């Protein structure tokens, strides 16, 4: 039973760090701000969950797992909220998505990264 937990936590941690790297590469490589939002949420959700679950498996049913659960809870609450705040602030300040689905007949749909950046 112990080896099953060890293998499971090993798999969780390796895949969690893999997703963290995938999210970071996505943040670096995606064309404009709005697609980078998606990339950031990958490492925020999959990376965080897998790594914290992997660590909790490693720690077993102790106070450490309770703390890891609390970290997971707070990251669950603050992650989407902060991403929404950034996206809302960007939209209000005029950073429009590339194919402006917001108002399709907007003539000056900016190309990526040449949007109204402050």
């Amino acid at each position: 039973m112990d080896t099953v937990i060890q293998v499971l936590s090993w798999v969780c941690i390796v895949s969690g760090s893999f997703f963290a790297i995938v999210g970071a590469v996505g943040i670096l490589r995606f064309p404009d701000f709005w697609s980078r939002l998606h990339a950031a949420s990958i490492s925020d959700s999959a990376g965080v969950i897998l790594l914290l679950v992997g660590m909790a498996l490693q720690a077993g049913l102790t106070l450490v797992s309770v703390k890891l659960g609390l970290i997971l809870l707070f990251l669950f609450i603050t992650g989407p909220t902060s991403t929404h705040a950034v996206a809302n602030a960007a939209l209000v300040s005029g950073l429009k998505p590339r194919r402006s689905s917001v108002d399709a007949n907007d003539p000056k749909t900016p190309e990526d990264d040449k949007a109204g950046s402050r």
Partner: protein
Amino acid sequence: MFALAAIALFIAMILVLIRLFAGPSLYDRVLALNSFGTHTVLFIGVLGFLNGRPDFLDIALLYALINFVGTIAILKFFRYRAIGDIPRKALEDEG
């Protein structure tokens, strides 16, 4: 295993840092900063497990909360040019 996770998180932090400096718009930078903070939380947790220090997780917990507050503060400042007392007019025309 934790060393592997630490190295992976370190690489992820470097990549996000590059985006933070290269980011054309302010909001790319805020997004990169937020992601960097989340990676730091995980990195502190992994370091805690590496060195056998369970109390690192309190630091990681605190860092997760402060990272959120920092992101919101930056956004609030760049929208209203003030963090503390937002002028009444700015709130009105905000609608």
